[in-house]
């Protein structure tokens, strides 16, 4: 299949330009240094990579410019006019793909934390004996699981965003968190219900009340059992976060699209974007696997 693909791409005559990709992660930006007056270069001191250029104006003012040696454009005694370049300073700047990756990362992280909290509270309501709480949580779970995330994001952005005047980023994070919360709630419910009844009874018989028994006995055990499905949920969340690009949040996916409009390196960029998502999700899996090993000591 790989060979087939290779032949097919040969046929469509696509020029691969992988060498263009790195600059969208990190690039060297030149800040041009220009003289603010007419004058003459009085001295040039080369200090390795840096160079100090001194310029004296017609009425005797002296001004020093520190620039990178490689960009030096003048010689001693050159006459300069207002706005002429002396040289430039170079700075490393994060490119759009790096910024997009970062946005996706923190967006998913914040949404995960809120999703976990919402899911935990809803999951507890779901198993509680209070009928109202139970029905409300079931309603929430059903509504969220029964509608597409994309539609939820639009509702959050266009409807709730307008009514409550919330920014696109808050709308995006809320939509993701509330979406994840519904799934987390079901995972937590299943986890709690998988703990043998005897655990709660033993805790109660020792005089612990229900919240204490939950905190010390049931939830720690349920957490251990729900770690694999929770991990899957949060990995999904990272991937689903690409949908917020539709409400113009510059996450990894949107950055990729923007880079494509200026480079036309469509194939390379999408492969790169896919790899970056893979990087995020596999790092998360590794972290979770490590936590799982840590928790396995009591087995």
């Amino acid at each position, binding site marked *: 299949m790989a060979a087939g693909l290779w032949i097919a791409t040969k046929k469509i005559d696509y020029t691969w330009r992988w060498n263009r990709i790195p600059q969208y992660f990190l690039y060297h930006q030149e800040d041009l240094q220009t003289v603010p007056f007419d004058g003459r270069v009085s001295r040039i001191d080369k200090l390795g990579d840096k160079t100090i250029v001194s310029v004296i104006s017609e009425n005797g003012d002296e001004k020093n410019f520190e620039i990178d040696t490689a960009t030096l454009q003048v010689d001693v005694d050159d006459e300069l006019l207002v706005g002429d370049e002396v040289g430039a300073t170079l700075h490393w700047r994060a490119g759009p793909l790096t910024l997009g990756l970062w946005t996706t990362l923190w967006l998913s992280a914040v949404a995960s934390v809120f999703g976990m909290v919402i899911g935990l509270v809803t999951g507890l309501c779901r198993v509680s004996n209070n009928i109202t709480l139970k029905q409300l949580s079931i309603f929430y779970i059903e509504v969220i699981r029964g509608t597409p995330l994309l539609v939820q994001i639009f509702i959050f952005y266009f409807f709730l965003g307008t009514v409550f005047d919330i920014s696109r980023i808050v709308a995006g994070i809320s939509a993701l968190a509330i979406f994840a919360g519904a799934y987390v709630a079901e995972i937590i419910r299943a986890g709690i219900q998988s703990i043998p009844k005897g655990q709660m009874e033993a805790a109660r*018989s020792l005089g612990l009340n229900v919240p204490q028994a939950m905190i010390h006995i049931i939830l720690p055990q349920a957490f251990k059992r729900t770690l694999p499905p929770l991990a899957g949920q949060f990995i999904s969340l990272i991937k689903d976060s690409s949908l917020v690009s539709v409400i113009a949040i510059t996450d990894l996916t949107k950055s990729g699209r923007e880079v494509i409009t200026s480079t036309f390196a469509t194939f390379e960029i999408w492969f790169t974007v896919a790899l970056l998502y893979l990087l995020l999700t596999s790092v998360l899996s590794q972290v979770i696997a490590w936590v799982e090993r840590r928790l396995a000591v009591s087995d």
Partner: protein
Amino acid sequence: MIKTIDLKKIFTGRGQTIRAVDGVSTHVESGEVVVIIGPSGSGKSTYLRCLNGLETLTSGHIIVDGIDLSDKKTNLNLVRREVGMVFQQFNLFPHKTVLENIILAQQVVRKRKRDEAEKRARQLLVKVGIAEKENVYPGHLSGGQQQRVAIARALAMDPKVMLFDEPTSALDPEMVGEVLEVMKQLAREGMTMVVVTHEMGFAREVADRVLFMDHGKLVEEGTPEHFFTEPREERAKAFLKQVL
């Protein structure tokens, strides 16, 4: 210490009603060891679980140490900390070590300091004979050891009464003795105990009084000598013939 008056517990579900406990009135004096025996499904566990409020009663009264459990205003958590319970399936907390199992409720419920709780836990581990296992997780212990930890865990709350629900039924035969030994020692020390068991030897040796239950009813009640030698009721006679 414990008094039950016309205690009823009726389970309803799937169109049938089960009168698990059907009008039991009895009392347990302070320092007394009461053994409850009876055929499977006769309501022994349910009765015991009512005594510390794990089951809500349908009607009647339970008075533990002067507090009426059937009163809506009673805080059951306050009663439960005075009533220790040991289960057939041990129900140790698998994510905590032996020591942590024993200190948890002391800290959370009794608000003891960590070192005080640990000291009490170690005393009790010595008493039940597994001092060397304090840092082991329950999953690595034999059934008999787990049950002894469970007894220590209940004792750590310094309860006024201990309830045992078939504490040796889930054990391999060679481990029954070590658990019964701990229970006998407790009885000698004057602990008030209510024990559901099929160990007739234990009942005969340790019990001050034997209660025989059948179909949720308290059929016969008396000293072990009376019960094992000349039971009045036909059902008790039939049961004894089977088990002895």
